[in-house]
Protein backbone atom coordinates (compact mmCIF):
# COMPACT_ATOMS: atom_id res chain seq x y z
CA UNK A 1 0.00 0.00 0.00
CA UNK A 2 2.86 2.29 0.87
CA UNK A 3 4.45 1.74 -2.54
CA UNK A 4 1.26 2.65 -4.33
CA UNK A 5 0.77 5.79 -2.33
CA UNK A 6 4.38 6.71 -3.06
CA UNK A 7 3.79 6.43 -6.78
CA UNK A 8 0.84 8.85 -6.54
CA UNK A 9 2.97 11.27 -4.56
CA UNK A 10 5.80 10.92 -7.01
CA UNK A 11 3.45 11.69 -9.91
CA UNK A 12 2.26 14.80 -8.08
CA UNK A 13 5.79 16.01 -7.43
CA UNK A 14 6.86 15.39 -11.02
CA UNK A 15 3.89 17.36 -12.36
CA UNK A 16 4.65 20.22 -9.98
CA UNK A 17 8.29 20.25 -11.08
CA UNK A 18 7.35 20.29 -14.75
CA UNK A 19 5.00 23.18 -14.04
CA UNK A 20 7.69 25.04 -12.13
CA UNK A 21 10.21 24.49 -14.88
CA UNK A 22 7.81 25.87 -17.47
CA UNK A 23 7.12 28.88 -15.25
CA UNK A 24 10.77 29.61 -14.60
CA UNK A 25 11.60 29.27 -18.29
CA UNK A 26 8.90 31.65 -19.44
CA UNK A 27 8.19 33.96 -16.59
CA UNK A 28 11.54 35.41 -15.55
CA UNK A 29 13.35 37.11 -18.40
CA UNK A 30 16.56 39.10 -17.99
CA UNK A 31 18.25 36.88 -15.42
CA UNK A 32 21.33 36.65 -17.58
CA UNK A 33 22.41 40.16 -16.61
CA UNK A 34 23.39 38.69 -13.27
CA UNK A 35 27.12 39.00 -13.79
CA UNK A 36 27.10 42.68 -14.76
CA UNK A 37 24.52 43.79 -12.19
CA UNK A 38 25.29 41.96 -9.02
CA UNK A 39 28.86 40.80 -9.23
CA UNK A 40 30.86 43.65 -10.72
CA UNK A 41 34.53 42.97 -11.05
CA UNK A 42 34.37 39.33 -10.09
CA UNK A 43 36.45 37.47 -12.57
CA UNK A 44 37.08 34.18 -10.79
CA UNK A 45 35.34 31.58 -12.97
CA UNK A 46 34.73 29.30 -9.98
CA UNK A 47 32.78 31.89 -8.02
CA UNK A 48 30.98 32.98 -11.10
CA UNK A 49 29.82 29.44 -11.71
CA UNK A 50 28.84 29.00 -8.09
CA UNK A 51 26.85 32.24 -8.00
CA UNK A 52 25.06 31.33 -11.17
CA UNK A 53 24.19 27.97 -9.73
CA UNK A 54 22.97 29.53 -6.51
CA UNK A 55 20.86 31.97 -8.40
CA UNK A 56 19.37 29.19 -10.49
CA UNK A 57 18.72 27.19 -7.34
CA UNK A 58 16.88 30.09 -5.74
CA UNK A 59 14.99 30.83 -8.92
CA UNK A 60 13.80 27.25 -9.22
CA UNK A 61 12.58 27.10 -5.66
CA UNK A 62 11.00 30.55 -5.95
CA UNK A 63 9.07 29.39 -8.95
CA UNK A 64 7.62 26.62 -6.79
CA UNK A 65 5.87 29.17 -4.61
CA UNK A 66 2.18 28.72 -5.41
CA UNK A 67 0.72 31.68 -7.25
CA UNK A 68 -2.90 30.96 -6.46
CA UNK A 69 -5.15 29.81 -3.66
CA UNK A 70 -8.25 27.87 -4.45
CA UNK A 71 -11.54 27.09 -2.76
CA UNK A 72 -13.83 24.60 -4.47
CA UNK A 73 -17.11 23.06 -3.34
CA UNK A 74 -18.47 19.64 -4.39
CA UNK A 75 -17.34 18.13 -7.71
CA UNK A 76 -16.69 14.70 -6.09
CA UNK A 77 -13.47 15.97 -4.48
CA UNK A 78 -15.01 16.94 -1.13
CA UNK A 79 -17.79 19.07 0.26
CA UNK A 80 -15.22 21.83 0.50
CA UNK A 81 -11.71 21.63 -0.88
CA UNK A 82 -8.90 24.12 -0.43
CA UNK A 83 -5.67 24.15 -2.31
CA UNK A 84 -2.82 25.96 -3.94
CA UNK A 85 -1.97 26.25 -7.58
CA UNK A 86 0.42 27.37 -10.27
CA UNK A 87 -0.35 29.28 -13.47
CA UNK A 88 1.97 28.94 -16.42
CA UNK A 89 2.16 29.13 -20.17
CA UNK A 90 2.56 32.19 -22.36
CA UNK A 91 -0.90 33.48 -21.48
CA UNK A 92 -1.05 31.59 -18.22
CA UNK A 93 -3.47 29.27 -19.93
CA UNK A 94 -2.35 26.27 -17.88
CA UNK A 95 -3.18 25.80 -14.22
CA UNK A 96 -2.12 23.01 -11.90
CA UNK A 97 -3.72 22.77 -8.48
CA UNK A 98 -3.37 20.54 -5.46
CA UNK A 99 -6.40 20.43 -3.17
CA UNK A 100 -7.34 18.83 0.12
CA UNK A 101 -11.03 18.13 0.56
CA UNK A 102 -13.33 17.14 3.38
CA UNK A 103 -15.95 14.47 2.72
CA UNK A 104 -18.59 14.49 5.47
CA UNK A 105 -19.50 11.29 7.25
CA UNK A 106 -23.15 11.08 6.14
CA UNK A 107 -24.20 7.40 6.59
CA UNK A 108 -20.65 6.03 6.70
CA UNK A 109 -18.53 5.48 9.78
CA UNK A 110 -16.15 8.41 9.49
CA UNK A 111 -15.42 11.75 7.87
CA UNK A 112 -12.92 11.36 5.05
CA UNK A 113 -10.14 13.48 3.62
CA UNK A 114 -9.44 13.50 -0.08
CA UNK A 115 -6.50 14.76 -2.11
CA UNK A 116 -6.91 16.10 -5.65
CA UNK A 117 -4.38 16.91 -8.34
CA UNK A 118 -6.07 19.09 -10.92
CA UNK A 119 -4.92 20.20 -14.35
CA UNK A 120 -6.86 22.97 -16.09
CA UNK A 121 -6.57 24.44 -19.57
CA UNK A 122 -8.12 27.87 -20.16
CA UNK A 123 -7.79 28.57 -23.89
CA UNK A 124 -9.32 32.06 -23.93
CA UNK A 125 -9.83 35.03 -21.68
CA UNK A 126 -11.72 38.12 -22.80
CA UNK A 127 -11.70 41.49 -21.05
CA UNK A 128 -15.18 42.90 -20.78
CA UNK A 129 -14.25 45.97 -18.75
CA UNK A 130 -11.30 47.34 -16.89
CA UNK A 131 -12.09 45.13 -13.94
CA UNK A 132 -13.76 42.07 -15.41
CA UNK A 133 -12.68 39.40 -17.78
CA UNK A 134 -14.46 36.23 -18.81
CA UNK A 135 -13.07 32.76 -19.34
CA UNK A 136 -15.74 31.23 -21.57
CA UNK A 137 -14.23 27.76 -21.39
CA UNK A 138 -12.01 25.91 -19.01
CA UNK A 139 -11.42 22.20 -19.30
CA UNK A 140 -9.21 19.60 -17.77
CA UNK A 141 -9.06 16.60 -15.54
CA UNK A 142 -8.32 15.77 -11.96
CA UNK A 143 -7.11 12.76 -10.10
CA UNK A 144 -8.66 12.21 -6.73
CA UNK A 145 -7.63 9.90 -3.93
CA UNK A 146 -9.62 9.39 -0.74
CA UNK A 147 -8.07 8.35 2.55
CA UNK A 148 -9.57 5.59 4.65
CA UNK A 149 -8.78 1.92 5.01
CA UNK A 150 -12.01 0.83 3.33
CA UNK A 151 -10.57 2.03 0.01
CA UNK A 152 -7.81 0.42 -1.99
CA UNK A 153 -5.68 1.51 -4.94
CA UNK A 154 -5.30 -1.99 -6.26
CA UNK A 155 -7.04 -5.01 -4.84
CA UNK A 156 -5.76 -6.44 -1.55
CA UNK A 157 -4.10 -9.84 -1.74
CA UNK A 158 -7.14 -11.67 -0.41
CA UNK A 159 -8.85 -11.34 -3.79
CA UNK A 160 -8.05 -13.52 -6.77
CA UNK A 161 -5.92 -11.48 -9.20
CA UNK A 162 -7.97 -8.90 -11.11
CA UNK A 163 -11.18 -9.85 -9.28
CA UNK A 164 -12.81 -6.43 -9.35
CA UNK A 165 -10.47 -4.78 -11.83
CA UNK A 166 -10.77 -1.19 -10.61
CA UNK A 167 -9.64 0.99 -7.73
CA UNK A 168 -12.05 2.24 -5.09
CA UNK A 169 -9.52 4.87 -3.98
CA UNK A 170 -8.35 6.55 -7.20
CA UNK A 171 -10.81 8.41 -9.39
CA UNK A 172 -10.18 10.31 -12.57
CA UNK A 173 -12.56 13.13 -13.42
CA UNK A 174 -12.97 15.25 -16.53
CA UNK A 175 -14.63 18.64 -16.50
CA UNK A 176 -15.64 21.72 -18.47
CA UNK A 177 -16.40 25.04 -16.87
CA UNK A 178 -16.54 28.81 -17.12
CA UNK A 179 -15.33 31.67 -14.99
CA UNK A 180 -15.40 35.39 -14.36
CA UNK A 181 -12.28 37.18 -13.14
CA UNK A 182 -12.26 40.39 -11.16
CA UNK A 183 -8.96 42.25 -11.24
CA UNK A 184 -8.55 43.91 -7.86
CA UNK A 185 -7.33 47.52 -8.32
CA UNK A 186 -3.82 47.91 -6.83
CA UNK A 187 -4.97 50.22 -4.06
CA UNK A 188 -7.69 47.89 -2.91
CA UNK A 189 -5.56 44.77 -2.90
CA UNK A 190 -5.25 42.94 0.35
CA UNK A 191 -5.05 39.20 -0.27
CA UNK A 192 -5.06 38.78 -4.04
CA UNK A 193 -4.55 40.74 -7.20
CA UNK A 194 -7.37 38.93 -8.97
CA UNK A 195 -10.27 36.72 -7.98
CA UNK A 196 -11.94 34.25 -10.33
CA UNK A 197 -15.37 32.81 -9.62
CA UNK A 198 -15.89 29.60 -11.56
CA UNK A 199 -18.11 26.60 -11.92
CA UNK A 200 -17.38 23.24 -13.47
CA UNK A 201 -19.44 20.31 -14.69
CA UNK A 202 -17.60 17.04 -14.25
CA UNK A 203 -17.96 13.31 -14.32
CA UNK A 204 -15.73 10.46 -13.23
CA UNK A 205 -14.66 7.12 -14.67
CA UNK A 206 -17.19 5.04 -12.72
CA UNK A 207 -20.11 7.26 -13.74
CA UNK A 208 -19.00 7.26 -17.36
CA UNK A 209 -18.92 3.47 -17.65
CA UNK A 210 -22.39 3.35 -16.10
CA UNK A 211 -23.73 6.01 -18.46
CA UNK A 212 -22.29 4.41 -21.61
CA UNK A 213 -24.12 1.14 -21.08
CA UNK A 214 -27.45 2.46 -19.79
CA UNK A 215 -29.69 4.70 -21.83
CA UNK A 216 -31.96 5.09 -18.79
CA UNK A 217 -29.32 7.09 -16.91
CA UNK A 218 -29.68 10.79 -17.61
CA UNK A 219 -27.06 13.58 -17.42
CA UNK A 220 -28.53 14.46 -14.03
CA UNK A 221 -27.37 11.04 -12.81
CA UNK A 222 -23.78 11.11 -13.99
CA UNK A 223 -22.83 14.80 -14.18
CA UNK A 224 -21.63 16.71 -11.13
CA UNK A 225 -21.53 20.44 -10.51
CA UNK A 226 -18.89 22.26 -8.55
CA UNK A 227 -18.09 25.90 -7.99
CA UNK A 228 -15.37 27.87 -6.35
CA UNK A 229 -13.09 30.86 -6.07
CA UNK A 230 -9.54 31.18 -7.26
CA UNK A 231 -7.35 33.88 -5.75
CA UNK A 232 -4.37 35.02 -7.77
CA UNK A 233 -1.75 36.04 -5.23
CA UNK A 234 1.45 36.28 -7.29
Amino acid at each position, binding site marked *: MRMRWWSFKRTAVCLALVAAEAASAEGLPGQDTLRADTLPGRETPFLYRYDRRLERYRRRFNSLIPQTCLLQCYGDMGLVSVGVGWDYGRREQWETDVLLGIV*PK*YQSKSTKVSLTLKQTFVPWSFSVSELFSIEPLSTGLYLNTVFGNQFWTSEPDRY*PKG*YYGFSTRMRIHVFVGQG*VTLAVPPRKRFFAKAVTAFYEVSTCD*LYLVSAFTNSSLTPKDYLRLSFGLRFKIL
Partner: protein
Amino acid sequence: MHTKTINYLICILPLLWGGCDLLESHPYDAHVTGETDINRKNTALIEERLAGKDTVRFAFITDTQRWYDETRLAVRHINARGDIDFVLHGGDQSDFGVTKEFLWMRDILNGLEMPYVCVIGNHDCLGTGKDVFRSVYGDTNFGFTAGGVRFICLNTNALEYDYSEPIPDFGFITAQQERMQADSLQRCVVLMHAAPESDVFNNNVAAVFGHYLRELPGLLFCLHGHTHALSVTDLFADGILYYQCPNIKKRMYLLFTVNEEGYAYEVVEF
Protein backbone atom coordinates in the same frame (compact mmCIF):
# COMPACT_ATOMS: atom_id res chain seq x y z
CA MET B 1 -21.24 46.57 -14.30
CA HIS B 2 -21.50 46.40 -18.08
CA THR B 3 -24.57 44.94 -19.72
CA LYS B 4 -22.26 42.53 -21.48
CA THR B 5 -21.01 41.17 -18.17
CA ILE B 6 -24.55 40.77 -16.92
CA ASN B 7 -25.39 38.87 -20.10
CA TYR B 8 -22.52 36.50 -19.50
CA LEU B 9 -23.65 35.94 -15.93
CA ILE B 10 -27.17 35.18 -17.14
CA CYS B 11 -25.67 32.50 -19.39
CA ILE B 12 -24.19 30.84 -16.34
CA LEU B 13 -27.31 30.91 -14.16
CA PRO B 14 -29.25 28.14 -15.94
CA LEU B 15 -26.60 25.75 -14.72
CA LEU B 16 -27.83 26.23 -11.21
CA TRP B 17 -31.00 24.54 -12.43
CA GLY B 18 -31.34 21.12 -10.87
CA GLY B 19 -28.12 21.92 -9.08
CA CYS B 20 -28.91 19.98 -5.96
CA ASP B 21 -28.87 16.63 -7.76
CA LEU B 22 -25.54 17.50 -9.29
CA LEU B 23 -23.87 18.48 -6.03
CA GLU B 24 -21.94 15.58 -4.56
CA SER B 25 -18.94 15.59 -2.28
CA HIS B 26 -17.61 12.18 -3.33
CA PRO B 27 -18.85 9.10 -5.22
CA TYR B 28 -18.36 7.12 -1.97
CA ASP B 29 -19.76 9.83 0.31
CA ALA B 30 -22.57 7.53 1.61
CA HIS B 31 -24.97 10.46 1.36
CA VAL B 32 -28.25 8.58 1.29
CA THR B 33 -31.27 10.59 0.20
CA GLY B 34 -34.77 9.23 -0.19
CA GLU B 35 -36.20 6.02 1.21
CA THR B 36 -34.26 4.00 3.79
CA ASP B 37 -34.81 0.86 5.88
CA ILE B 38 -36.59 -0.85 2.99
CA ASN B 39 -36.23 -4.50 4.09
CA ARG B 40 -37.90 -3.86 7.44
CA LYS B 41 -40.81 -1.98 5.85
CA ASN B 42 -41.26 -4.49 3.05
CA THR B 43 -40.98 -7.63 5.20
CA ALA B 44 -43.72 -6.16 7.42
CA LEU B 45 -45.85 -5.60 4.30
CA ILE B 46 -45.22 -9.14 3.04
CA GLU B 47 -46.05 -10.68 6.42
CA GLU B 48 -49.24 -8.66 6.64
CA ARG B 49 -50.43 -9.32 3.08
CA LEU B 50 -49.64 -13.03 3.01
CA ALA B 51 -50.76 -13.96 6.55
CA GLY B 52 -52.90 -17.10 6.34
CA LYS B 53 -52.36 -17.60 2.61
CA ASP B 54 -51.65 -21.15 1.37
CA THR B 55 -49.87 -20.26 -1.83
CA VAL B 56 -46.90 -17.93 -2.04
CA ARG B 57 -45.61 -16.78 -5.42
CA PHE B 58 -42.44 -14.75 -5.72
CA ALA B 59 -39.96 -13.71 -8.36
CA PHE B 60 -36.22 -13.96 -7.78
CA ILE B 61 -33.86 -11.54 -9.51
CA THR B 62 -30.20 -11.02 -8.75
CA ASP B 63 -26.92 -9.40 -9.86
CA THR B 64 -28.48 -6.29 -11.35
CA GLN B 65 -25.29 -4.22 -11.01
CA ARG B 66 -24.82 -1.64 -13.75
CA TRP B 67 -27.70 -3.12 -15.79
CA TYR B 68 -30.22 -0.41 -15.08
CA ASP B 69 -31.97 -0.72 -18.44
CA GLU B 70 -32.47 -4.48 -18.03
CA THR B 71 -33.61 -4.09 -14.40
CA ARG B 72 -36.21 -1.58 -15.55
CA LEU B 73 -37.46 -4.09 -18.10
CA ALA B 74 -37.63 -6.80 -15.42
CA VAL B 75 -39.65 -4.52 -13.11
CA ARG B 76 -42.04 -3.77 -15.96
CA HIS B 77 -42.37 -7.47 -16.81
CA ILE B 78 -42.95 -8.54 -13.20
CA ASN B 79 -45.54 -5.81 -12.69
CA ALA B 80 -47.35 -6.77 -15.90
CA ARG B 81 -47.88 -10.38 -14.72
CA GLY B 82 -50.01 -9.29 -11.80
CA ASP B 83 -49.73 -12.66 -9.98
CA ILE B 84 -46.54 -12.16 -7.97
CA ASP B 85 -46.73 -11.57 -4.22
CA PHE B 86 -43.21 -10.24 -3.69
CA VAL B 87 -39.74 -10.08 -5.21
CA LEU B 88 -36.44 -11.29 -3.79
CA HIS B 89 -33.21 -9.65 -4.90
CA GLY B 90 -30.09 -11.80 -4.50
CA GLY B 91 -27.55 -8.98 -4.08
CA ASP B 92 -25.04 -7.03 -6.16
CA GLN B 93 -27.16 -3.99 -6.79
CA SER B 94 -24.04 -1.94 -7.18
CA ASP B 95 -20.96 -2.71 -9.22
CA PHE B 96 -18.46 -0.41 -7.49
CA GLY B 97 -20.10 0.19 -4.11
CA VAL B 98 -20.66 3.80 -5.18
CA THR B 99 -23.48 5.47 -3.22
CA LYS B 100 -25.49 6.63 -6.22
CA GLU B 101 -25.58 3.10 -7.65
CA PHE B 102 -27.63 1.96 -4.65
CA LEU B 103 -29.98 4.91 -4.99
CA TRP B 104 -30.45 4.42 -8.75
CA MET B 105 -31.20 0.74 -8.24
CA ARG B 106 -33.49 1.42 -5.28
CA ASP B 107 -35.47 3.92 -7.34
CA ILE B 108 -35.88 1.36 -10.13
CA LEU B 109 -36.92 -1.42 -7.71
CA ASN B 110 -39.35 0.96 -6.01
CA GLY B 111 -41.20 0.82 -9.32
CA LEU B 112 -42.30 -2.72 -8.35
CA GLU B 113 -45.97 -2.84 -7.45
CA MET B 114 -45.30 -5.53 -4.85
CA PRO B 115 -42.85 -5.44 -1.89
CA TYR B 116 -39.27 -6.56 -2.43
CA VAL B 117 -36.33 -7.39 -0.20
CA CYS B 118 -32.61 -7.45 -0.94
CA VAL B 119 -29.66 -9.37 0.45
CA ILE B 120 -26.18 -7.93 0.28
CA GLY B 121 -23.79 -9.02 -2.49
CA ASN B 122 -20.01 -8.86 -2.54
CA HIS B 123 -19.98 -5.85 -4.87
CA ASP B 124 -22.30 -4.04 -2.45
CA CYS B 125 -19.55 -4.24 0.18
CA LEU B 126 -16.94 -2.17 -1.69
CA GLY B 127 -15.83 1.22 -0.38
CA THR B 128 -18.63 2.60 1.79
CA GLY B 129 -21.14 0.21 0.19
CA LYS B 130 -21.76 -1.76 3.39
CA ASP B 131 -22.80 1.43 5.18
CA VAL B 132 -25.05 2.50 2.32
CA PHE B 133 -26.66 -0.95 2.10
CA ARG B 134 -27.30 -0.89 5.84
CA SER B 135 -28.89 2.53 5.58
CA VAL B 136 -31.05 1.82 2.52
CA TYR B 137 -32.04 -1.80 3.30
CA GLY B 138 -31.10 -2.55 6.93
CA ASP B 139 -29.45 -5.56 8.56
CA THR B 140 -27.56 -7.91 6.27
CA ASN B 141 -29.10 -11.00 7.97
CA PHE B 142 -32.86 -10.97 8.32
CA GLY B 143 -35.89 -13.23 8.17
CA PHE B 144 -39.60 -12.95 7.50
CA THR B 145 -42.63 -15.18 7.20
CA ALA B 146 -44.75 -15.25 4.03
CA GLY B 147 -47.82 -17.45 4.30
CA GLY B 148 -46.52 -20.35 6.34
CA VAL B 149 -43.01 -20.16 4.89
CA ARG B 150 -40.04 -18.65 6.68
CA PHE B 151 -37.58 -16.82 4.43
CA ILE B 152 -34.09 -16.68 5.90
CA CYS B 153 -31.90 -14.10 4.17
CA LEU B 154 -28.17 -14.37 4.82
CA ASN B 155 -25.01 -12.41 4.23
CA THR B 156 -22.50 -14.92 2.83
CA ASN B 157 -19.84 -12.54 1.48
CA ALA B 158 -17.12 -13.60 3.91
CA LEU B 159 -14.27 -12.39 1.68
CA GLU B 160 -15.46 -8.81 2.10
CA TYR B 161 -15.53 -8.87 5.90
CA ASP B 162 -12.10 -10.10 6.89
CA TYR B 163 -13.37 -11.73 10.13
CA SER B 164 -14.80 -8.43 11.42
CA GLU B 165 -18.26 -9.99 11.53
CA PRO B 166 -19.28 -13.66 11.57
CA ILE B 167 -20.08 -14.48 7.92
CA PRO B 168 -22.10 -16.66 7.61
CA ASP B 169 -23.63 -15.98 11.02
CA PHE B 170 -24.41 -19.37 12.54
CA GLY B 171 -25.85 -17.70 15.61
CA PHE B 172 -28.40 -16.01 13.38
CA ILE B 173 -29.30 -19.30 11.63
CA THR B 174 -29.84 -20.99 15.02
CA ALA B 175 -31.96 -18.06 16.18
CA GLN B 176 -34.11 -18.39 13.04
CA GLN B 177 -34.50 -22.12 13.73
CA GLU B 178 -35.69 -21.36 17.26
CA ARG B 179 -38.01 -18.67 15.94
CA MET B 180 -39.54 -21.17 13.50
CA GLN B 181 -40.09 -23.69 16.29
CA ALA B 182 -41.67 -21.01 18.46
CA ASP B 183 -43.99 -19.95 15.62
CA SER B 184 -44.65 -23.60 14.62
CA LEU B 185 -43.43 -22.98 11.08
CA GLN B 186 -42.81 -26.15 9.06
CA ARG B 187 -41.19 -24.81 5.88
CA CYS B 188 -38.42 -22.42 5.01
CA VAL B 189 -36.38 -21.05 2.12
CA VAL B 190 -32.84 -19.67 2.42
CA LEU B 191 -31.69 -16.72 0.30
CA MET B 192 -28.03 -15.70 -0.04
CA HIS B 193 -25.82 -13.96 -2.56
CA ALA B 194 -22.89 -16.36 -2.84
CA ALA B 195 -23.43 -20.09 -2.43
CA PRO B 196 -21.04 -22.32 -0.43
CA GLU B 197 -17.94 -23.27 -2.42
CA SER B 198 -18.00 -20.00 -4.37
CA ASP B 199 -14.99 -17.68 -4.20
CA VAL B 200 -16.36 -15.21 -1.64
CA PHE B 201 -17.84 -17.83 0.74
CA ASN B 202 -15.91 -18.87 3.85
CA ASN B 203 -15.30 -22.34 2.48
CA ASN B 204 -13.63 -23.54 5.64
CA VAL B 205 -17.16 -23.74 7.04
CA ALA B 206 -19.01 -24.68 3.84
CA ALA B 207 -19.84 -28.18 5.14
CA VAL B 208 -20.78 -26.78 8.55
CA PHE B 209 -23.08 -24.31 6.80
CA GLY B 210 -24.70 -27.24 4.94
CA HIS B 211 -25.16 -28.99 8.28
CA TYR B 212 -26.79 -25.94 9.91
CA LEU B 213 -29.18 -25.57 6.97
CA ARG B 214 -30.17 -29.26 7.20
CA GLU B 215 -31.16 -28.61 10.82
CA LEU B 216 -33.71 -25.99 9.72
CA PRO B 217 -37.26 -27.37 9.85
CA GLY B 218 -38.58 -28.20 6.37
CA LEU B 219 -35.96 -26.44 4.26
CA LEU B 220 -37.43 -26.45 0.75
CA PHE B 221 -34.53 -25.01 -1.26
CA CYS B 222 -31.85 -22.31 -1.32
CA LEU B 223 -31.59 -19.33 -3.66
CA HIS B 224 -28.41 -17.58 -4.69
CA GLY B 225 -26.73 -15.51 -7.38
CA HIS B 226 -23.12 -14.39 -7.80
CA THR B 227 -21.73 -16.45 -10.71
CA HIS B 228 -24.21 -15.00 -13.25
CA ALA B 229 -25.35 -18.43 -14.45
CA LEU B 230 -28.57 -20.37 -14.41
CA SER B 231 -27.96 -23.45 -12.30
CA VAL B 232 -29.59 -25.99 -10.02
CA THR B 233 -27.15 -27.87 -7.78
CA ASP B 234 -27.45 -30.39 -4.98
CA LEU B 235 -24.36 -28.93 -3.34
CA PHE B 236 -24.03 -31.24 -0.35
CA ALA B 237 -25.73 -34.31 -1.91
CA ASP B 238 -28.37 -34.02 0.79
CA GLY B 239 -31.32 -33.38 -1.49
CA ILE B 240 -31.37 -29.62 -0.83
CA LEU B 241 -31.26 -27.81 -4.15
CA TYR B 242 -29.46 -24.52 -4.68
CA TYR B 243 -31.14 -22.52 -7.42
CA GLN B 244 -29.11 -19.80 -9.04
CA CYS B 245 -30.68 -17.05 -11.09
CA PRO B 246 -28.47 -15.51 -13.79
CA ASN B 247 -27.57 -11.83 -13.73
CA ILE B 248 -30.28 -9.53 -15.01
CA LYS B 249 -28.36 -8.79 -18.22
CA LYS B 250 -29.38 -12.26 -19.42
CA ARG B 251 -32.97 -11.02 -19.04
CA MET B 252 -34.19 -13.90 -16.91
CA TYR B 253 -35.76 -14.27 -13.52
CA LEU B 254 -36.99 -17.26 -11.56
CA LEU B 255 -40.60 -17.57 -10.55
CA PHE B 256 -41.39 -19.79 -7.58
CA THR B 257 -44.76 -20.97 -6.37
CA VAL B 258 -44.80 -22.54 -2.92
CA ASN B 259 -47.85 -24.23 -1.46
CA GLU B 260 -48.71 -26.99 1.02
CA GLU B 261 -47.86 -29.74 -1.47
CA GLY B 262 -44.42 -28.44 -2.31
CA TYR B 263 -43.07 -25.95 -4.78
CA ALA B 264 -42.72 -25.34 -8.50
CA TYR B 265 -40.47 -22.99 -10.39
CA GLU B 266 -40.03 -21.66 -13.85
CA VAL B 267 -37.40 -19.62 -15.61
CA VAL B 268 -39.02 -16.53 -17.08
CA GLU B 269 -37.30 -14.78 -19.99
CA PHE B 270 -38.27 -11.22 -20.75
